[in-house]
């Protein structure tokens, strides 16, 4: 077993990994930038090493500094978390060269899945469905038009060198193809200096459904079911859940098998996720491989909640050379889990990220409630890093129980000092389409404006008056002696709302 693990990350994921290490008797080494000297993950680890200045490229993205820290701290393994260096093959290789176990897949698997076009070809070869499309060598108007006709309208024209949706054009019929192609080429040239394009079938109103896979170094690969992440704002996931309400049992099996095939095609080891687009629902649905995330996912607790598996424990065991402790037949889903990402961003101001001090921080508690957080009262939220502060994960016997539980928990989740998206999350959870589980990946981009507008702005006069009094330093009838602590409040009293 790994003895001392360096965690090449920060925030909630660093704390979550430290917790798992404690449980397995693995010593932990935190790393930190100038901005994070007082961050919770630094205080909670057994050892802590300063690795550089606040901007990530000088610290959490600095391979040399992190390897140096691991060697100096006598660590025998490195966990990259998610983001930062987690999917960088050179980092995995640098760990290997330094004699450190990289808690993740082999560098070769990171490389194979890292190339968009290469991965697509590999997946097609492994009989994993990809979105139908063509990349004609002949880039003439006629050849591309013919390719679009073969793929079938509606199609998407995508720049070959592109990314992030730039230069992508939707074409609904053959007559509109010429103008759209010209526009796509202009934008591709302007943004990427390359006007090559390819044609893909447009998947209308898809759901984002991903399959958790796990492989050990003994040739065993399983899938650990799905997560639905269709609630995204500009490709940023906001709410995730499992099971996916649109997935039938047989579709789940087929997607699971495809994800296993994808993992095997690249010699995958450890935790990974295959992302798919799901078109339609039930047994008649179609699914298409998008990409593989070669790391632990932000939303992994959703899978942990419904399966009872601790994925970080499993990562550490598998990285230590142990075989998977279960077979596919031994895995099952129980109940329903929902994760809400708490971002430091202001919905009322176009979701601009917020930075500043956290003056008051109070997490919800209760049956089926889990909070993975990177901050606490007194934390300073920095402009240098991702604005995700924490994740609320709830579990219940049914989707509706979980949804109601999430709402009640968010209504108790007080973060003061900076603005967060909690009020926005509450609106999503109450939206009729979310309640019916009939959302696709375009839902938040279509409905975001009206969701923000529906955030209640009225406050009871008594509450405002209390705030005014507090502000003025005056208090009417302070009888704090009658109540010992907020923890002893009757939950039915404390949950009483003011709306309605």
């Amino acid at each position, binding site marked *: 077993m790994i003895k001392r693990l360096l965690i090449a990350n920060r925030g909630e994921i660093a704390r979550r990994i430290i917790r798992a290490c404690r449980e397995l008797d693995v010593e932990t080494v935190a790393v930190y930038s100038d901005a994070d000297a007082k961050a919770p993950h630094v205080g909670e680890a057994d050892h802590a090493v300063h690795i550089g200045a606040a901007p990530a490229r000088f610290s959490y993205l600095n391979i040399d500094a992190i390897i140096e820290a691991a060697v100096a701290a006598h660590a025998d393994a490195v966990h990259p978390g998610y983001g930062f260096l987690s999917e960088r093959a050179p980092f995995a290789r640098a760990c290997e060269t330094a004699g450190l176990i990289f808690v993740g897949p082999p560098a070769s698997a990171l490389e194979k899945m890292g190339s968009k076009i290469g991965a697509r070809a590999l997946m097609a070869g492994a009989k994993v469905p990809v979105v139908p499309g063509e990349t004609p060598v002949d880039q003439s108007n006629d050849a591309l038009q013919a390719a679009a006709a073969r793929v079938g309208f509606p199609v998407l024209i995508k720049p070959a060198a592109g990314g992030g949706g730039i230069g992508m054009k939707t074409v609904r019929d053959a007559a509109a193809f010429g103008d759209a192609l010209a526009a796509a080429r202009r934008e591709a040239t302007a943004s990427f200096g390359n006007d090559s394009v390819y044609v893909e079938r447009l998947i209308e109103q898809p759901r984002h459904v991903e399959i958790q896979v796990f492989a050990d170094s003994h040739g065993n690969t399983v899938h650990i079911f799905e997560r639905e992440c269709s609630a995204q704002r500009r490709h940023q996931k906001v709410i995730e859940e499992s099971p996916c309400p649109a997935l039938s049992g047989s579709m789940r099996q087929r997607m699971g098998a495809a994800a296993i095939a994808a993992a095997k095609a690249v010699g995958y080891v450890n935790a990974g996720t295959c992302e798919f687009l799901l078109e339609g629902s039930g047994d008649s649905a179609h699914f298409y491989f998008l990409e593989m995330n070669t790391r632990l996912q932000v939303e992994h607790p959703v899978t942990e909640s419904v399966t009872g598996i601790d994925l970080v424990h499993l990562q550490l065991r598998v990285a230590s050379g142990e075989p998977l402790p279960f077979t596919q037949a031994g895995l099952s889903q129980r109940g329903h889990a929902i994760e809400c990402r708490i971002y430091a961003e202001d919905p009322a101001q176009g979701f601009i990220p917020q930075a*500043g*001090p956290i*003056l*008051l921080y*109070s997490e919800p508690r209760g049956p089926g409630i889990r909070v993975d957080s990177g901050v606490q009262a007194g934390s300073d939220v920095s402009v240098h890093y991702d604005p995700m502060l924490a994740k609320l994960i709830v579990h219940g016997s049914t989707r509706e129980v979980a949804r109601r539980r999430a709402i009640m928990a*968010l*209504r*108790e*989740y*007080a*973060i*003061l*000092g900076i*603005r*967060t998206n*909690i*009020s926005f999350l*509450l609106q999503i959870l109450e939206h009729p389409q979310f309640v019916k589980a009939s959302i696709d990946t375009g839902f938040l981009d279509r409905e975001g404006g009206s969701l923000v507008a529906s*955030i*209640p*702005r*009225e*406050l*009871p*006069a*008594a*509450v*405002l*008056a*209390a*705030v*005014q*009094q*507090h*502000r*003025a330093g005056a*208090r*009417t*009838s*302070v*009888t*704090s002696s*009658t*109540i*010992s*602590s*907020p923890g002893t*409040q009757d939950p039915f*009293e*404390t949950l*009483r*709302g*003011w*709306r309605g």
Partner: protein
Amino acid sequence: VAESRALGNGWWLVTDGDKRWRVAIVEGEDGTWFFVDGQVGRIDAESAPISRGRAKGRGDTSVMAPMPATVAAINTSVGQSVNEGETVIVLEAMKMELPIKSPRSGIVKAVHCAKGDLVQPGVNLLEIE
């Protein structure tokens, strides 16, 4: 009559008749932050709610608007005497009435607003001498 009672750690139990709310309140450099039922608000620092007449009898006291609001009623006029705690102006903000109380006893020296005015935080509504 609304009451609030400290629960500790920045939490208050606010009651108004048979309604009650658990409210978190904390003072920051940029203002007073509060939380109730998943909603976060802040009263900006520059908009002191009521300039409190600590120095009783020494000079004039201004009564300020705590937040952007509409003047719903003015219960006094120049030359009238008011008592400390007496509601002198009623503002309406966020569809709620917000009574503005006199911070001290005295004579109303000037009224700087009229019914229906939209007032901004920190604006001087009334002066008491």
